[in-house]
């Protein structure tokens, strides 16, 4: 068996860059859809609010409320959806 080809990631001109880490994706998602109040963010508080925000998002999407960025939560964040926030603010 040949070694698996190392996938080369190319930046395509005109592409809306979406190559981001899972954490960046999750953070952007929770902010965009109103789960994290983007105001008053600080270090320690941010950890608590991210876990709490994840639980709120998991409840909204009918997922298991682990407060963790698990596989099913990450997949849900990648699915096409409506742009209206889930948490009105």
């Amino acid at each position, binding site marked *: 068996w040949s070694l698996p080809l190392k*996938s*080369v*990631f*190319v930046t*395509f*001109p*005109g*592409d*809306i860059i*979406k*190559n981001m880490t899972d954490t960046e994706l999750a953070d952007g998602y929770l902010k965009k*859809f109103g789960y994290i109040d983007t105001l008053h963010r600080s270090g320690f508080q941010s950890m608590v609010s991210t876990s709490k925000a994840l639980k709120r998002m998991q*409840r*909204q*999407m*009918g997922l298991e409320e682990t407060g963790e960025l698990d596989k099913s939560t990450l997949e*849900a964040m*990648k*699915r*096409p*959806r*409506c*742009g*209206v926030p*889930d948490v*009105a603010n």
Partner: protein
Amino acid sequence: YKTFAGDLKWDHQEVTYRVISYTPDMETSLVDDAFARAFKVWSDVTPLTFTRLFDGTADIMISFGKTDHGDPYPFDGKDGLLAHAYPPGEGLQGDAHFDDDEYWTLGTGPAVKTRYGNADGAMCNFPFTFEGKSYTTCTTDGRSDNLPWCSTTADYSRDKTFGFCPSELLYTFGGNADGAECVLPFVFMGEEYDSCTTEGRSDGYRWCATTSNFDNDKKFGFCPSRETAVIGGNSEGEPCHFPFVFLGKEYDSCTSEGRGDGKLWCSTTDSYDDDNKWGFCPDQGYSLFLVAAHEFGHALGLDHSNIREALMYPMYSYVKDFSLHEDDVEGIQYLYGRRAGPDPTPPQPNTPSPTSYPDPKTDPTDGPTDPTTTTRPVDPSKDACKLTKFDTITVIGGELHFFNDGQYWKMSSGTEGGLKGPFSISERWSALPAVIDSAFENLLTRKLYFFSGTRFWVYTGKSVLGPRGIEKLGLPDSVQKVEGALQRGKGKVLLFSGENYWRLDVKSQKIDKGYPRYTDAVFGGVPNDAHDVFHYQGHIYFCRDRFYWRMNSRRQVDRVGYVKYDLLKC
């Protein structure tokens, strides 16, 4: 379900909408139909009605756009955010925006509606066979004019039904050229273009000139996308080029190589390495109907639901046979209540007490000797009481309207009674000609239909559609004018001309089968050459010259009288 803070909702039931711009992915009539069906999802379970406007400001303004499209919430390229909408209210509130970096379909791959050909606008049937070969896209095979076409059945050789596919060589949409096709090559800013271009625009839409020189003529339209065109990328509208070379390797089909998100893409030239021209490959696309039904839920006041099967759930999932979840129904009825039983029937006004009227045997010109008691401050030449015949009489907004030669009078039934006018037709309905042969108000949609000669106009509030030929409704060429219109129950209207009448289905805008019928065969005892027929206060009136024949709901003529004295109250 959830509603927005403060239970934001419309304070009226007749909600209006207007389509401001279109996507190149689907023929405009398919887009219109998808939106109409999406609104029907909500009007089926509430008292709400949705009326489409063609200009001016509607409650719900619908548009397509890409990335930064003019509000503070930019879209994000293909996939991800599909659309968004604002809760009810003024201005931007209530509007719906759709991301045009998406591939809009009916949810199951290219939705290609044909034009011309012999299939009467049927959809392409993919795959189809032609001369023993199978096709999954439109083709120019078999033609020398380079126009893409498709079969509308699985086997063209057997059925020979076909139509032409969306192509800039056939038509454009939007712009200012009434859908005329592109003229290629054309000159723009001194340069020659032999295909559609996004040059000169910041919104990424492809356009072309519909004359050979845009600089001189300023005539343009937007280019429909061919169903083989790539989505997004930097080659909008171009088809994949197979084979193509990427990182030195040759590809004969779409690939996800080079990407971390697994999306299939292709090069639109023979070498991506040389030209860097690419786009995403057409896929099943997103159902414009389903996404619109969701967004219109927001525009009516619903927020997101956490019920996975509900329409208002934030994530998209294609459903073949869609029906509203009870969670959606409960939410919208919390805001607007239930749809009251069958279609609302307009309240029947109480029939007027019989009033005496001069015996029609005497010559009406003798009439009562004392001068008319009306104190209307009108120019004598414009006195309705001096007219022996009107172009048409009809009821609009529950009031009798008398039209004659560019003017109209109205008999207000309220306390201040009496005839008002004359008013200028063109001031209130600017598109109308001076002579109106007949008119009616559709009581369900409040739309006003006006007929003059072989043309008709449809007014919705201030906005007008028309003139259009009455043959579009299915009336034969022999009909030179429509002389009367009678509402008959749900969405049906009888149109009278000469000795015949036809029944129009207002919703389909088509004449029902089995017509025409002879007027006097069904409405016994009235003249069969009435020049006006209308429905008023529970009775049907047939007018000829100065007289009217009044028929009650049992189709008995219960009165013959003078328009002048009984209706105009001269």
